[in-house]
């Protein structure tokens, strides 16, 4: 069982992809611990394994070997159904391309995780609207994603990641599609609204302008964690 203060503990995690005639090792004996309530950034060059690592941590990809405990649970040993329920309850996602459903309005998009968790639609939309108000989009709850700016779409995505009160939020390049000011605002919002003592944020990013928001930064290269450093003090 994981220590209560650790949200994620990965030990010797290995993941390889079969690309036809050769195997590519995306994660090569990765060891990483992320504390509960921490904002951890994963940084490194393209292809270094950052996205594979958050996919494993988020429970949407199985490692080949090694051990990965998330919120005290060993994801590899879970059944598919158990893993689905675990993701639905405990994980929030923020994507680089926002990944909002274009035919749904902001409130409907934000209500999806609640509906997946079995909450009735009307109640889910009520709660979604209150979270949209928290992220400053109370006036745009009926807007389709095509009617929102990039920054507003990312705010909707953040509201969607928060609405079901997950204990872990994984973000994949959340500011890459945004200009500097909007990216800064989004990170401020994430830190203010999303992060508190029981919730952990793992952010994959290339964007050096937002490194200051992290509690710690794990640098990856060629499937390894090469350095973990704190940003404070």
């Amino acid at each position, binding site marked *: 069982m994981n220590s209560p203060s650790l949200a994620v503990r990965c030990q010797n995690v290995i993941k390889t992809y079969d690309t036809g005639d050769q195997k590519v090792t995306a994660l090569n004996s990765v060891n990483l611990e992320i504390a509960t309530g921490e904002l951890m950034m994963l940084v490194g060059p393209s292809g270094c394994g950052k996205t594979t690592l958050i996919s494993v941590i988020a429970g949407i990809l199985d490692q080949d070997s090694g051990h990965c405990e998330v919120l005290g649970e060993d994801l590899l040993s879970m059944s598919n159904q158990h893993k689905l329920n675990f993701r*639905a309850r405990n994980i929030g996602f923020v994507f680089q391309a926002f990944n909002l459903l274009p035919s749904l309005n902001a409130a409907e998009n934000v209500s*999806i995780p609640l509906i*997946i968790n079995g909450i009735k639609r009307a109640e889910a939309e009520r709660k979604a609207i209150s979270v949209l108000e928290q992220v400053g989009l109370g006036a745009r709850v009926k807007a389709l994603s095509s009617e929102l700016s990039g920054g507003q779409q990312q705010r909707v995505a953040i509201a969607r990641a928060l609405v079901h009160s997950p204990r872990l939020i994984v973000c994949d390049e959340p500011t890459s599609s945004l200009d500097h000011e909007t990216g800064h605002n989004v990170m401020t919002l994430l830190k203010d609204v999303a992060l508190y003592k029981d919730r952990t944020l793992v952010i994959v990013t290339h964007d050096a302008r937002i490194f200051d928001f992290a509690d710690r930064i794990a640098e990856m290269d060629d499937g390894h964690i090469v350095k973990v450093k704190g940003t404070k003090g």
Partner: protein
Amino acid sequence: MNHIALKMLMGDRGKYLGIVMGLTFASLIMTQQPAIFLGLMSRSYSFISDVGLPDIWVMDSKVQFVDDIKPLQDTELYRVRGISGVEWAMPMYKGLLKARLVDGTFQTCNVVGLDDATLIGGPPVMLEGTVEDLRRSDGVIVDIDGARDKLGKPSPIPGGKPIPLKVGDSLELNDHRAIVVGIAKVTRTFQSQPVVYTTYSRAKSYAPKERKLLSFVLVKAKPGQDFGELTRRIRATTGLAAYTREEFMSLTYEYFMHNTGIPINFGISVLLGFIVGAAIAGQTFYNSTLENLRQFGVLKAMGTSNWILLRMILLQAVLVGTIGYGLGVGLTALFGYSMRHSILAFKFPWQLLLFSGAGVSLICIFAALLSIIKVIRLEPAIVFKG
């Protein structure tokens, strides 16, 4: 998740309408073409179904269908009347004779001669006059469609509609004068020739002189008499063919099914409708799923199970299928209604709804299955690809 599935489906209006139109087209073709086919086929035996009174039809053993007349000697009538279990037996003449019209042109008519005394086998519905009027001198009854069209008098305006034949008008049948004494409504026959009813003896006088002129013997069984048993007895005693009304209709129907190109022609139309509908609807539905694949990936990453995604796709398929089917069937019904007074054959029994419903369901299952396989195999990690 149902409303999300429906919104995803209708999000792209163009694609949504494309799927619905494809299914509407398939449903229309799979309903309208068989309806015309059934209408045509029912015309093949409409003469038999119009003659309601007799239980059994007796004819030459080589007859293959109702218009395949192989005349009998009049004495066969008396032999049939002598068979036990026969309540009554009446003669009927049926043959194609040429009518000379007012403008000097000729029109082939289906002349039906009824027993002089009883007039059994007469037209099912009289619009003007009565069947008994056939007893008047030179009297004939003409069917309304023939009277209006093929037997009509030429219009005084060039290219105008013919003037319908009326009661009191005359025509020549094989150089014999005939006076119209009644107008009847009969079910259109396969050849769509005008039907002219007269008495048996008068029909024989119209027909070219032959030793044998009796086309059918119409038989009524005694009350309680088993029809199957009676037909066997008639066959055994006379050496003629004897069929119940249903058997004779079936014999005629089967002849047309096996000896004409009609079933295969309509079958090809229906198959093409199915294939084109399946191709349009299936392809568009599948493309729509492919475009939404990332969205399905997001739902999967967030914890939506394959079973719920499968239900979402099935709901989408059921919705477009129901709308397309309803529109197709509705258009077919509208087509049939608008053509009800035309020469076009059209029969729309409830079984046809099941047939086209099954066809549209197959297309939807096919379309949904392709999408379901794609979504179930989808790796949720796709969501992290930029």
